[in-house]
Every structure is written in structure tokens, then in C-alpha cells.
């Protein structure tokens, strides 16, 4: 349910594993590689490279799952994150949430994505025609995250 992998992500796989008749909805967020950079709006992004502290990243993803279940006890969640070199349009992350009703599905999926961006040790490098640079995400507020 929670994995960090160099293999291309299969959206159907993440979604289908959550399909069960107790749920009335599956909300999925699919992150894809964008050809523009916030840091360098003048330069097209050619590709991106994701690096991860894999053991910790998978642990943090599982922890996000536990936190989601504490807040929305009736949902089931899967999070898959790709690492390595990705080209434009490829899928970098899939977060799928199955829930009895849509409201908690949208809320839990959105919460999990924000948490991932703040706490999971994965790093993105944008590659341009004339160079490359690591993206600095949302700063960690304190160490005890």
C-alpha cells in the first residue's frame, strides 16, 4: 500500500486494490512531471530526477496512512511514489483513498498529499537544457516532524 519505487507507477493497480463494496468512492491524486519550473520560469524542464532516503520515506508514508486512519477511521489509503529519472508527463506519485462517501475521500487525499510534501524525505531535481537544480520544497517547521 505504501511504496517508493524506481518502476513506473500503475494508477489502476493502486486504485483497484482499494476497490471493495464497503466503499462508495475512490479519490485518486496523480502527480505528473511538469514541463515548467517555479524556480526558472524562463526555461523548460526536460526531465526530473527524484532521490529518496528510501527506508525512511516508506516509513513516513506508512505513518501518513496511520494518521489518515486516525482522522478518517473509515477510509483506506495507498501511496506510491516513483524515484529515479522521469520524463515529462510521467507519473511521480499516486495517492488513492477509498471511503464510504466522497467528502472524507477528498479531504483525506488532500491532507495526505500536503503531509507528504512536508515530511517525506524525497527530493526532486529539475533538469534543464543548460543545467539542473534541486527543488527546495516546503521548509520543515522544526525538527520534530
Amino acid at each position, binding site marked *: 500500500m505504501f511504496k517508493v519505487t524506481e518502476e513506473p507507477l500503475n494508477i489502476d493497480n493502486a486504485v483497484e486494490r482499494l476497490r471493495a463494496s464497503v466503499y462508495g468512492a475512490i479519490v485518486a491524486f496523480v502527480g505528473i512531471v511538469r514541463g515548467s519550473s517555479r524556480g526558472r520560469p524562463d526555461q523548460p524542464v526536460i526531465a526530473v530526477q527524484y*532521490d529518496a*532516503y528510501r527506508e525512511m*520515506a516508506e516509513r513516513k508514508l506508512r505513518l501518513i496512512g496511520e494518521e489518515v486512519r486516525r482522522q478518517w477511521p473509515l477510509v483506506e489509503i495507498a501511496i506510491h511514489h516513483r524515484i529515479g529519472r522521469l520524463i515529462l508527463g510521467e507519473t511521480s*506519485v499516486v495517492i488513492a483513498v477509498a471511503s464510504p462517501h466522497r467528502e472524507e475521500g477528498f479531504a483525506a487525499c488532500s491532507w495526505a498529499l500536503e503531509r507528504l510534501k512536508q515530511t*517525506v*524525505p*524525497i527530493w*526532486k531535481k529539475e533538469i534543464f537544457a543548460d543545467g539542473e537544480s534541486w527543488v527546495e520544497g516546503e521548509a*520543515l517547521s522544526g525538527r520534530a516532524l
Partner: protein
Amino acid sequence: MKIRVRLFASYREATGVSDTTLDTPEGTTVDGALAELVVRFPRLASYRQGLVAAVNAEYAEGAQRLQDGDELALIPPVSGG
């Protein structure tokens, strides 16, 4: 005591090192180990203010005491998603 140190992303590229060992006295804290790493890898100095560490794959406070065999990771600002 021996501490395994791991560096990722921009820190790995700045130092040219992804995995190394630190030999420190008993009672060394996370902050103490970070200070030693900045001496060993001067290019980390520019990140010194915002260095975030993890011990055994969990975010750690600067005052945490390290144990022999711990894995200390330096965590650059994350940007997954």
C-alpha cells in the same frame, strides 16, 4: 562510538559522499555530530543554519544523544510529490 552517516540529494552532491562513518565520543549529540560533519565537509557550512537530521530514519532533535551504531541522516528540504 561509530555512527553511520548518510547524505542525500543536494548534500550528497555538495560533498561527493553518500555514506560515511563518524567516530565520535560517547554522549555526542546530533548537534555535535553535525558540527563535526561541517568541519569534515566544509561545503555543508552554507546549509548549517537549516540542517535537519534524522536518527535511525526518524526526525531528531539537536539535543538527542547518539548511540553506537546509530544511522544519522542529513535531510535537505524535502520536495516530493
